[in-house]
């Protein structure tokens, strides 16, 4: 389990993280989402022991991350800008990783060769961005981590390889109980793989819930009010409202039953609850945090 408690980090007076807290249950896939500059990469660099927090606590399986070599031996990271030695081939980097990660499995390395189909002897700098990303996955998964931390992991991969990679990650979660924290802007993709989501904005975790809870907490309704009622009643606490003809589309922060009951008093001609996508939840949650989504029409 990954736990972050009241994490604060300041860069020359600018607070990148302010009392951020999150919990990633063991064996879960946790999607960390947030707008640009929210502090996602900073948080990940703390989780991987690159940055030392100004204050707060970061633990994985109850152990602090900072300067904990035995813990880090069980954690693999794929950052957005993965570093490799400029004169290194994939095989060179494999030897390098093998020298650091005690559980590095050559058996798995061999198995993954068939999936990634990369030339081990080629210099990594001569590979495309997507192939470099594959190499990073190949190395990280062969290290047999209990905890996998991914920052924009499938950025640059083709759709087939995306599926392949997610399949490998999900396989690790199901077979070995790995914990995965993934930061991405691709919310549609996260929706497919994550079971927990945390939304980070301005250095703070606005909310974190299981995806089911999150979807249950917000509802999109398509409503047709009786004749003569052209506007949405002011008493209804809408996060967002739009109208096409007589059909009003309302976003409400409550579950579908509560929303339907609330609208029943106005005797609507039609009420239809539509599940929100993660992208919509992200946009409307941030809309509550002064994020500039007022003019976004879905």
């Amino acid at each position: 389990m990954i736990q972050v408690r009241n994490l604060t980090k300041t860069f020359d007076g600018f607070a990148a993280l302010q009392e951020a807290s999150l919990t990633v249950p063991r064996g879960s896939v946790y999607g960390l989402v947030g707008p640009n500059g929210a502090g996602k990469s900073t948080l990940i660099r703390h989780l991987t022991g690159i940055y030392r927090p100004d204050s707060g606590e970061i633990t994985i399986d109850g152990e602090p991350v900072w300067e904990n070599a035995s813990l880090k031996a069980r954690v693999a990271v794929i950052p957005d800008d993965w570093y490799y030695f400029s004169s290194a081939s994939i095989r060179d980097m494999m030897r390098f990783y093998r020298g650091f990660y005690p559980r590095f499995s050559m058996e798995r390395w061999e198995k993954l060769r068939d999936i990634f189909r990369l030339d081990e002897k080629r210099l990594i700098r001569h590979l495309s961005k997507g192939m470099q990303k594959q190499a990073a996955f190949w190395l990280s998964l062969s290290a047999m981590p209990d905890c996998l931390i991914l920052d924009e992991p499938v950025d640059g991969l083709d759709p087939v390889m995306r599926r392949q990679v997610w399949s490998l990650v999900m396989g690790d979660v199901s077979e070995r109980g790995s914990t995965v924290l993934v930061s991405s802007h691709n919310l549609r993709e996260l929706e497919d793989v994550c079971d927990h989501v945390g939304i980070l904005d301005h250095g703070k975790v606005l909310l974190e819930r299981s995806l089911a809870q999150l979807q249950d907490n917000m509802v999109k309704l398509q409503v047709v009010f009786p004749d003569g009622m052209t506007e949405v009643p002011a008493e209804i606490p809408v996060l967002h409202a739009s109208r096409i003809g007589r059909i009003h589309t309302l976003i409400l922060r409550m579950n579908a039953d509560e929303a339907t009951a609330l609208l029943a008093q106005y005797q609507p001609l039609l009420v239809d609850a539509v599940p929100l996508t993660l992208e919509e939840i992200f946009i409307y949650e941030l809309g509550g945090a002064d994020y500039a989504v007022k003019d976004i029409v879905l």
Partner: protein
Amino acid sequence: MQSKTSFFNPTLFRKNLSRYWPLWGFASFVGFLLPAAALVQMVHQGDLHIAPLVVREGYYALLCDAVPIVSLGYAILCAMAVWNYLYNARSVGLMHTLPIRREGLFLTNLLSGLAMMLIPYAVAGGLSTILFACCGGFDAWGTLVTILGVIGESLAFFGIATFCAFLTGNIFVLPALYFLLNFLAPLGDWIVNLFARGFLFGFTSQYSGSVEFLCPVVYLCQNLYYHSEYARDSVTGRNTALSAVTLEGGWLIALYAAAGLLFLGLSYLLYRRRQSERAGDVVAVRAFRPIFRFGAAALCALLGGRLLYALLWESFQSGDGFAPVPMAIFLMVAGLIGYYGASMLLSKSLRVFRGSAVGALCLVVACAAFCAGMRFDLFGAERRIPEDSEIHQLELYAAGNTYYLSPEDNAQLLAEAKMLQETLIAQKSLIESNYETYRHGSTSSDPDTYTSIRYVYTLKNGATVERFYTVSFTRSDLQEPGNYAHALDAFINSAAMRQARLRWGDPDFKVEGGWFSAQYTGGFDLGTRECETLLSAIARDAGNGAWGRYDWFEDGETAYAMDLSFSFVRTLTDERGTRYESYDSISIAVRPEMAETKQALLDLGLVGEEDFITWAELKEDSITRAELKEEATPETAA
């Protein structure tokens, strides 16, 4: 495979060596050239035998003269190689996510860097040892001392380079910082002397060397040396073969190596506190940011201010010294440029002006205070005259002669010399004003002249205090009691100084030879016995008051048209215990009143009566002859 310890990772060690093999590979090739060249030379000379002591001498020569300079340059390359991951956010990210603690990374990279430093030396030394051993020149002690010396010097320079590596977060700043730190002490010394010369009366020194020990490469090159002793042939008295070679000052290597270790220790502490996010920053340690900002401002103020002064003011001023107000203004301007430049580098932004007023104001005040302090000699440097208890020797140059005075042998003269210096210091304003008048040509009917007086105190602690005064005066100044010129004349023309000038009876100086020439009998080299006879006669004339009075306005016209000079040799021992000879000479103007000297010249057969003709008479004679010649050949003259 992964290391069992968290302090050293062999994978990283191997990776470092394999990544940077061109660096140590090329250095090793250069090292290989050394024994190769030695072998070629031996083959060329047809002598494949070499004595172990000759090998030792060669090793020590390299250790003293080459290794410090090579290590200075090579250490920074090795440090840049092993610590470069700290300067890039991506690479620092990879290294710090690996399952190894900071101390493990530090120690592994440190050992990698040291290995890169030592491999070329090992190649050169190993091959040389094998080669010389095959030629009968294996010297175990010399080899061991050299190995330890090379390790010590490498440790010293790599330690400094590593320390600099942890101060900065920028790969390009690292070498600049390293060389600045290595040469900061001599640079500071030079700057201090630069301003002292301009502001303080009597200061002419360019460089004191008092803090040179803070510059390892210079100090090692100057104070680490080897001493060779040769067996002497009892018949010919010539040196035959090396009998012993010893390394002197080897403790300095140990001292600098210890300093290198200390720097490494500090580097580790900095690494523990280092923030990975500082990758790319000019200064990576928060506490050093103000030091960098104000240090850069101070350097810029002093060097840039002096440059601006030279460009915009010095050519138009009347005196030699610095004018404090313009200098302060130039210091402020250059200092502010340095201050804001450093601020921009630190913040990686051009927007540094807001909120910087307090720092800039402090800098401006510091510049003004510096100039005021120098102008009014706040630290009493101008007035400093060493106490007798501090003095080992005073080397005084005055009236064309050098005098060596020590508290033990010349207490009275030393006291008088110091009293004269006190008088000069007390009348600083008058001296400066008179010299200005002299330089621009006095309009007074009273003729003026100038002379220089140089004091070099060698203190018992090895330091030197040097002052140089240029004074000008008129004939009437010489007659005015209390005037510095009167004090100078009284001192230089005292009986004791006359005797000291002649070096007659001075046990430290031995007359070595001389030269005499007269108008008609020609010139002669003088032997030791002739010199002693003449010096004795001059000393008797001095005792009679016929020689020795130094005439500040003397034009030489009343002396005989003769050249008489003596050279002396003085045997001294330097701080290394090596004996060396110092040479000195005096010229004697023979005058009609020097009866004893005239008689001695006649007795030695060096002159005839016709040679006793003064320069004035000779000049008159020449004019007369020329006129007669003109009259005899008017057409030629026409």
